[in-house]
């Protein structure tokens, strides 16, 4: 007799095999959004997540254990003003609170001078005027036109299915704003910045702000990102209570609509039958069968590891094989301290800024630093950005009046000497640099530190391969209708029943609210369910002007 016979099982568990309309792989922002829309549309949805907590990049965790929580990944929410999910699920109000400081991005220099990018144009112009009156005037002028590009085109297009480059340029020809955007596309970020501003420090700040999410400053064909990332970089929001709260809010919408969320559920296989995807198998052995499988993982994981090369034709497999990961990742040092960093500079307002860049003295140095990173090195010339999270959110520290900050910089996945050795060295170098910029960041002020290297990012999220925060590089042949490739950029794949809607699908990475939304739209259409949501007014205007 076994012990099982003596006691009998005392409770029931989630079944070994179950049936769903839709199974979604990965509960990052995109998986959560797709699941929330589709569950509310009445479909039977299961969202399966490998980690112990939903959220993917939307994490708020006590990595400074005990007592201090941080946002180890997403902290700057740049599309809150546009994401349909916010309005459709009422996520701006009691269930989620967004804080958008006016002092957005500061840059401090060794000589104590500083620059500040604010939400309100005139404050930025005032700051730029310290260096160049002409640049201040130009800033006002270009931002006027760039904001229109973002507002009328780039932002709404994020939530509308992509077009081919030819269709796109034909559409953009229709308006003056569109033509301005076309001109920008052709240029590199560096050219755009250099042509617009004369002062090198102003240029350095603008270049950092537009390329920090992984643009190659010298690459042409991606110029439209400059207005987007600059404008959005001036409108970053903080999610009060931590970024994870955004994930929890979406998670609750899924549950309220009758959906299922399984954590600790690593998908080991997408089940194929008669050339169709018909469900998933979990590493623990359970299966979830479904009409549709949506993957938010990178193309290599989805197609090579989970589907299997035997189910793809040669050409398609070649497209998948050709996928390139982000050119750089992040190294982040998280710190709990007695006091918030106080920067030594000419503008006390800097201490309230949401993001503060330091260590960068010139565009030349910035470019050299990025070149180093791409070559697998970090030199003494590195710089990066820092945020003091507790300035905006007291909930992150369990101990009263203590502070939590981080410093983040671009870093290669493969580094000379290896991260295991380099990480600790970097910590010393970062603290030394930080102390130079903010003299109170000395060891006595610091309670605890923890670093996250690109390898650590990949360990937490195997789908962020090589620490790729966007699941794949931003370059012309991996953007727009080429993201992740022409066959899949609509979210539907050549494999019947399989959709892709993570950061590696159009429109791309960061918390844009794009891929998951577009995936949900496509699946709703293909399964013939009624959409309960409507396009936003911005989208309507865009569609009317450019797509009809």
């Amino acid at each position, binding site marked *: 007799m076994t012990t099982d016979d003596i006691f009998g099982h005392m409770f029931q568990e989630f079944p070994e095999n179950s049936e769903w309309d839709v199974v979604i792989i990965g509960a990052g922002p995109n998986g959560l959004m797709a699941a929330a829309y589709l569950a509310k549309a009445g479909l039977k949805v299961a969202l399966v997540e490998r980690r112990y907590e939903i959220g993917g990049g939307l994490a708020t965790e006590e990595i400074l254990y005990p007592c201090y929580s941080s946002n180890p990944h997403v902290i700057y929410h740049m599309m809150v003003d546009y994401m349909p999910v916010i309005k459709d699920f009422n996520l701006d109000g009691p269930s989620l609170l967004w804080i958008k400081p006016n002092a957005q991005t500061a840059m401090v220099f060794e000589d104590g001078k500083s620059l500040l990018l604010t939400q309100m144009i005139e404050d930025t112009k005032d700051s730029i005027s310290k260096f160049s009156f002409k640049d201040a005037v130009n800033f006002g002028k270009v931002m006027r036109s760039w904001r229109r590009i973002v507002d009328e085109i780039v932002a709404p297009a994020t939530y509308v299915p992509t077009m081919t480059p030819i269709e796109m340029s034909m559409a953009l020809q229709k308006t003056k704003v569109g033509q301005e955007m076309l001109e920008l596309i052709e240029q590199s970020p560096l050219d755009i910045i250099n042509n617009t501003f004369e002062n090198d420090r102003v240029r350095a700040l603008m270049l950092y702000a537009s390329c920090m999410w992984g643009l190659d400053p010298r690459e042409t064909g991606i110029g439209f990102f400059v207005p987007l990332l600059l404008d959005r970089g001036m409108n970053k929001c903080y999610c009060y209570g931590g970024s994870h709260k955004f994930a929890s809010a979406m998670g609750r919408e899924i549950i309220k609509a009758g959906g299922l969320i399984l*954590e600790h559920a690593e998908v080991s296989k997408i089940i194929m039958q008669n050339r169709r995807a018909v469900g998933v198998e979990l590493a623990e052995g359970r299966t979830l069968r479904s009409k549709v499988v949506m993957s938010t993982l990178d193309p290599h994981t989805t197609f090579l590891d989970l589907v299997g090369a035997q189910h793809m034709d040669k050409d398609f497999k070649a497209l998948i094989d050709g996928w390139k990961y982000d050119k750089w990742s992040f190294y982040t040092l998280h710190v709990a301290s007695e006091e918030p960093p106080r920067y030594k500079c000419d503008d006390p307002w800097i201490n309230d800024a949401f993001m503060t860049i330091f260590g960068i003295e010139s565009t030349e140095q910035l470019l050299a630093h990025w070149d180093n990173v791409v070559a697998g090195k970090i030199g003494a010339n590195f710089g990066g950005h820092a945020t003091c999270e507790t300035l905006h959110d007291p909930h992150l520290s369990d101990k009263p009046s203590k502070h939590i900050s981080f410093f983040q910089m671009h870093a290669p996945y493969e580094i000379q000497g290896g991260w295991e050795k380099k990480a600790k060295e970097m910590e010393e170098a970062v603290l030394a640099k930080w102390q130079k910029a903010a003299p109170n960041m000395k060891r006595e002020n610091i309670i605890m530190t923890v670093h996250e290297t690109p390898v650590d990012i990949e360990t937490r999220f195997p789908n962020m391969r090589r620490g790729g925060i966007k699941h794949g590089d931003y370059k012309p042949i991996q953007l727009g209708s080429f993201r992740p490739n022409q066959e899949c950029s609509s979210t539907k794949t050549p494999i019947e029943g399989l959709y892709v809607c993570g950061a590696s699908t159009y429109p791309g990475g960061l918390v844009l609210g794009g891929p998951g939304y577009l995936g949900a739209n496509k699946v709703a259409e293909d399964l013939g369910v009624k959409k309960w949501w409507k396009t936003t007014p911005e989208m309507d205007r865009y569609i009317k002007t450019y797509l009809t």
Partner: protein
Amino acid sequence: MSRDERYDVVIIGGGPNGMTTAAYLSKCGLSVCVLEERVECGGACETVEPIPGVRIYPHAMLMYASPAPGFEQLELHKYGFRMVWNPEDMMRSLTAGNTTTQGVTRITEKDAMGFAKLGGLLGQPPFTRELMRATFWCPPHPPEVEVTDENTPYMQVYKKYQPDVCTPELRDWTMFELMDEFCESEPFKVTMAFAAWASGAAGHWEGVAIPALLSVQLLILPNTGKLSIPRGGLHGYFHAIHRCAVAHGAVVRTACPVEEIIVQDGRAMGVRLRETAAIGGRKIWANKAVIAAVDYKQTFLKMIGREHLDPSFIQKVKDISLKNGTLYVSTYHTRKPIQWNKKFKAMQESETGVAGPAKVASGGVYPSDSRELYYENVADCDARKSLPTLPPEKLMWFLTPSQAFNPTDCQGRYREGYISAAFEVNVPVPEYQIEGIDAQDKEKAKLDAYMRKAFSQALDGLEDENIIHLWSATGREVEFRNTGLIGGTWCGSRHCRDQSWTRRPMPELARYRTPIEGLYTCHQTTGHPGGLCLMAIPYNLMHILIEDSIAEPGKWWYPSPYYIPQKEKVSAIPR
């Protein structure tokens, strides 16, 4: 327009007890709002990943809840509840023996049989479950009912299945006395007594022999004899409860600390949030009830204005005793695995290490030589209340059982080094600490070194060169992390006879009602059975809320068979 919100029931605190209550009440069709101070719900039932790929459980890690009616009543399986079954069963781990300064001592047949008998293993199958449920999942009897051998739930179960256990003294005994009767070897008894002490009901306390013993047995017996845990640890189980609540319409608000319980004319009307709350310092009104699923100190000494409570009640609240130490938990990250030393070869050989490449030491109480040693430890912590005065060789510690069978275990995927099982040591509750409330924090490095010496008595691998990192938290840090864990303890108030069952934590509060009308308590510190993530307090509270016509559950509800309705109230037994 008012920014304030209104619900039928407002629950303060999103720990396991608050959330389970939310699930029960929303399933009854009530509109419910849970307000949680931290950025994440879960209370002392959580998982953290301080370094990528390594998960640690700061508090709860072992599954004691298996017999809970909540699994069925809340249908947790629908919300993704899954277990990871330990391939090894209890019988095997028991044979490894007990660890004493002399090495491993055998567990005798009499030990095993006595343990089995008391846990209901020798009776028919429902015995174990009924026994556990009677002890933990039954509300205390109403004040007008005198508690006797005849109406004590566990006595009734023993009478039915194992009558020879029932003796006139059983309800008065200490756990040591009980084990002297049924078991044989001293190290076995000491191990059990220490495990009970670390479970909040010590081996030497009067009159709690059976609940103390069963709190240890809960760990093993109902999990079909295997020390198994939920997939994702206890936080995974918590998720299923949380989702059940949300699926039934409960509104959950994190980063929303409650500052005040609004009382008017002796009745709880709602709560006011702290100004920093994620929805600002609003008021949240309750039509039917406010449920404090946070500790009694906050509830009665901070959140309610003094004018609403009489001084004798406040005195009693202040006198609730926390004296049973707090658990100082340490988890090591090492280069080579920590293993039992030569003297404990038998222990090392019984390690499973299914998921990991090497067998990391786990599961033991050391040193379990004698009850004198046990008493010396109790005296150090509960009597002297000082930083440790015993030499490290005498410090008793508990190494949690292995979870290496579990792919979600901290060691599961980590690429380098080894993560130890958690070490637990009893230290005084900070507020009683004679050297001052922050003495442990100030001396943390010394305490860690002292404990390391103590652990090294039986284990290899705790040398400086081998340790990459140590995560530990003092009682005060635990209390900072989670305001409900007063004193950092895992049950909050001592589970001694004077503070348990119909007296937990004092007679006036035993049935989860309070001197404030419409205010109920539902926290480990405030009600029977106390600590552990059992879904027991909420189940027991349900009886009372039905009595008060607040909850009207559907057909899925069943009360405890040992429940006695209060006079002149609606009975929780469905007609």
